[in-house]
C-alpha cells in the first residue's frame, strides 16, 4: 500500500483551459498518488468539472501536460477511459431504458462479459435498494434513484481511478452514508478517488487530501489537518477565506435590510 501511495497516478503540469476568451484554468500543477481520496473543491465556476473532464479524456482542447497512470490523456484518451470510472455532475440518462439495460450497455462498452455485467449490476442495484426496480424504465425514477444508477455505471467495470463529480447529489441520508463507506473501501483497495463537491462536510470526512481551487488556480493543497492549522477551524471557513467574501454576517444583515422599504 505504501508503495502505491508514493507513485503518482495522476500528473497535471501547467494546465490551462479557456472557453472562448474566458480562461477557466490558469496553470494547475498536481501530482496525485495511487490509493488517495482527493477532495477537489472550489466555488461555482472555479473549473472543477473542467479539470475532471480533461482528466477523463473528454476534452483535449487544453494547454499543458496531463497524464493518468502514465498515459498522456491528450494522445491516448481511449486508453485512459478504459481504466477510469466517471460519474458526471447532473448527467442525463436515456430514460426509456431500465437501469439494467443502461448498465448492460455501459458494461458492454467496457467489453465486460454479459454474465458478469448481469451478476454485478444486479448485486449493485440490490445494494442501492434498486433491485426491485431494475426492469422499470428510468423515466419513472426519482432524482436519487437516477443518481444511484449513475454511480453504479461509474463503478461497474471496477476501474482503477474514479472521478466523481458531485456524486451525492439527490441521494438520501442512508445512500450518502453508503457511498462514503464505498469510497473509503475502494481507496483501501488501492483505487484512486478524485472527488469534486460543494459539500464541505463530506469532503472533510472522506478525503485524504483536499485541493481547493479558485480563479483557475490551486489555492490550498494538503490534508484537512494541515489546512486547518494554516487557515481556520473548518473547511467552510477555509473555503470562504480563500475564495472570496469572509464577512457573511454583514452580508446577511444587508440582505435582510432590503425588506425595510
Amino acid at each position, binding site marked *: 500500500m505504501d508503495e502505491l501511495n508514493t507513485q503518482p497516478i495522476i500528473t497535471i503540469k501547467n494546465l490551462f483551459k479557456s472557453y472562448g476568451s474566458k480562461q477557466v484554468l490558469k496553470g494547475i500543477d498536481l501530482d496525485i498518488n495511487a490509493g488517495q481520496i482527493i477532495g477537489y473543491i472550489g466555488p461555482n465556476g472555479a473549473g472543477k468539472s473542467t479539470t475532471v473532464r480533461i482528466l*477523463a479524456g*473528454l476534452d483535449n482542447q487544453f494547454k499543458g501536460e496531463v497524464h493518468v497512470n502514465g498515459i498522456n490523456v491528450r494522445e491516448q484518451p*481511449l*486508453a485512459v*477511459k*478504459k481504466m477510469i470510472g*466517471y460519474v*458526471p455532475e447532473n*448527467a*442525463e*440518462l*436515456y*430514460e*426509456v*431504458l*431500465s437501469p*439494467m*439495460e443502461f448498465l*448492460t*450497455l*455501459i458494461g*458492454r*462498452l*467496457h*467489453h465486460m462479459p*454479459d454474465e458478469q455485467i*448481469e451478476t454485478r449490476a444486479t448485486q449493485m442495484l440490490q445494494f442501492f435498494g434498486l433491485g426491485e*426496480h*431494475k*426492469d*422499470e*424504465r428510468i423515466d*419513472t425514477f426519482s432524482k436519487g434513484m437516477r443518481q444511484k444508477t449513475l454511480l453504479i*455505471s461509474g463503478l461497474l467495470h471496477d476501474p482503477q481511478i474514479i472521478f466523481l463529480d458531485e456524486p451525492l447529489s439527490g441521494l438520501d441520508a442512508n445512500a450518502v452514508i453508503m457511498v462514503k463507506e464505498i469510497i473509503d473501501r475502494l481507496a483501501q483497495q488501492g483505487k484512486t478517488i478524485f472527488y469534486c463537491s460543494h459539500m464541505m462536510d463530506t469532503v472533510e470526512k472522506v478525503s485524504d487530501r483536499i485541493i481547493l481551487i479558485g480563479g483557475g488556480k490551486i489555492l490550498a493543497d494538503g490534508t484537512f489537518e494541515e489546512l486547518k492549522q494554516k487557515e481556520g477551524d473548518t473547511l467552510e471557513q477555509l473555503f470562504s477565506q480563500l475564495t472570496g467574501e469572509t464577512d457573511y454576517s454583514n452580508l446577511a444583515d444587508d440582505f435582510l435590510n432590503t425588506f425595510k422599504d
Partner: protein
Amino acid sequence: MNRFLLIIIKTFYPLIRKWNVHTDQLEIILDAKLKMDGRRPSMFNQRYNKGNAKGQDWLSMALFFFFGLMFLALFAAINDKVSAFVLYFSGWMVVLAMTLISDFTEVLIDPRDNYILLPRPVNDSTITVARVLHILLYVSKLSFAFALPGFIFVAIYFGIPYLPVFVLQVLISIVLTIFLVNLVYLILLRVVPTKYFKEAINYFQIAFTILIFGVYYLLPRIVEKSVVENINVMDTPITWILPPVWIGALWATLAEWQISPKSLGLGLLALTSPILALYAISTYFARDFNQRMFSISQGGSGNSDKPKKVKTSGKSALSTWLALKLTSNRIEKAAFEWTWKMMQRSRDFKLRVYPSIALVPFFFVYIVLQGDGTVAERLSQMREGHQYVILIYLCLVLLTTPLNMLSYSGQSDAAWMFYAHPVNRPGTIMLGAFKAMTLLFFFPAYLFMFFVALSLWGPQVLDDFMFGGVNILLIGIFVASFQSKRLPFSASWEIQKKGDGFVIGLMTMVLAGFLGSLHYFLLTDKALIIIGLSILSALLFLVMMRNYRQTPWSKLNY
C-alpha cells in the same frame, strides 16, 4: 393583441369577482400565460428557435388565416352551399381539435402551475378561471384568424345581413369542438392509465395525422369531380350524426329559409347541442378532471398505476437474437440492442417517424388508383408495364425517414456515456444502429409490401423486389455515410431542424431516381441481368457497410 384581449376580459371583472376570483392575480397569470404562448412552438410550427422565439402566436394565427382561406375553395367546388358549409366546418373543427389536443395537452398538463402557482397565495378559483380563460383566449385568437376570410367571403358573396348566421355557426363549432376534445380526453383518462396519458395522446395524434393525409390523398382519387360538384351532404341520413351537418343545417334554415323537418331538426340540434355540451362539461366532465390532470402533471405519481416494467429477459428477445446473428462485435451488438429499444420506446422519435412510414400504404393505394379504368384494369396495366417498380422505390421512405431521425433525441445530453467510455471507433455504434433501424423499420414493411405485390401481380415481382430492396439498402448506407455523422440519439431536435436535410434529401432523390429509372426503363424484362446486378449491389452495400464501421471519432460531428 394580448393587451387587447386582456382589456376585453377586464370588462367582465365585476362578474368574475363574484366567483371568488382575485382579478389582479388573474390578470398577472393570464398575461404571463399569453406571453408564454407567444414563445411556445405550436404543432403547425415545429421550426422554432429556442431563446429568441417570439410571436409564435402570430405565426399560428397567420397559418389559421391561411387554412380559412384555403377552405373557402369548397364554395367554388361545390354547387350546394349548405354542403360547402358542412365541409368547411368539418375541416375547421378537425384543425381546431388537432391544435387543441396537441397544444393543450401541454397547457393542461403544465406542471409549472403546480410548482409556481400552487405554493403562492392564489386561491383555487383564480387558478381554475385563469386556466379556462387562457384556453378561451387562445381558441378565440385562432378562431378569429380562421374565420376572418370566411367572414369577408360571406359579407361579399351572400351579403352583410348573413354575417350573424355565420358568426353563430363559428361559435357553435368552437363550443362543440371543445366538447369533443374534452370527450376524447375523458375517454382516454378513463381507458388509459394516468401514467401513459401523454403517450396515448401522442398515438392519437399519429393516427389522426395518418388519417388526414390518407383522406387528403385518396379521397380526390376515389370520388369523381362531378360527384363533388353535385354533392348534397344532408341527403345522406348517416351524416346527420355529425355536428358539422347540424351547423350546415343552421345555414339552410336561417339563411336560405329551407323549412323542412330535416333542416329544422338538424338546425335545432346545432342550437341546443352547445348548451348541452356546456352543461355536460361543467357537470359530468369537470368532475375529477382537474385532479387527474394534476396527477398527470406530477408524472402520474398520484395514481396507483404500477411502473411499467420493460422486457429485459434478454436471450429470448427478438432484438437480442437478431443482434447476435447480424453484428460482428460486442460493441456493435450493444449498439444494435440499445438502438432497437430506443426506437421502440422514444416518444419523440416515434412521433416523427411513424406518420411518414404509415403513409406508404396510402401512397401504394394512391398509385394503384391513379389513372383510367377500373381497379382490376389498373392492376393489370401495372403488371404488364411493370409499373409496380415505382412502388418498390416508394419503400425508400421506410429507410430514409428513420435514418434522418436516428441521430436526434430529446435526451441527447445522455450521449455523454459514449464519449466517457472506451469506444474505439464510433462507426461500430453507428453501424449497429443502422442495422437495428433497417431490421425494425425497413424489412418488415418491405416484406409486407412484397407479399401484397406477390398476391396482386404474381411471381414476376420477385426479382424486381430483390433488386429494388438491395438498391434501397445501398442508398440507405450511402446516405448514412455521407450525411453529417453523429452517434444515434446524440443531437437535439433543434440541430435536426438546422441540419443538412435538404442536401441529403436531394442526394437521396437523385440516387433513387437514377437506380429506379435504370431498373424501370432498362431492366424490367431481364431477370438474369437483374439478379446479377442485385448481387453487385449487395456486394457494394457490404463494402460500404465495412467502410461505415471504420468511421473514426475525427469524422464525427459532435
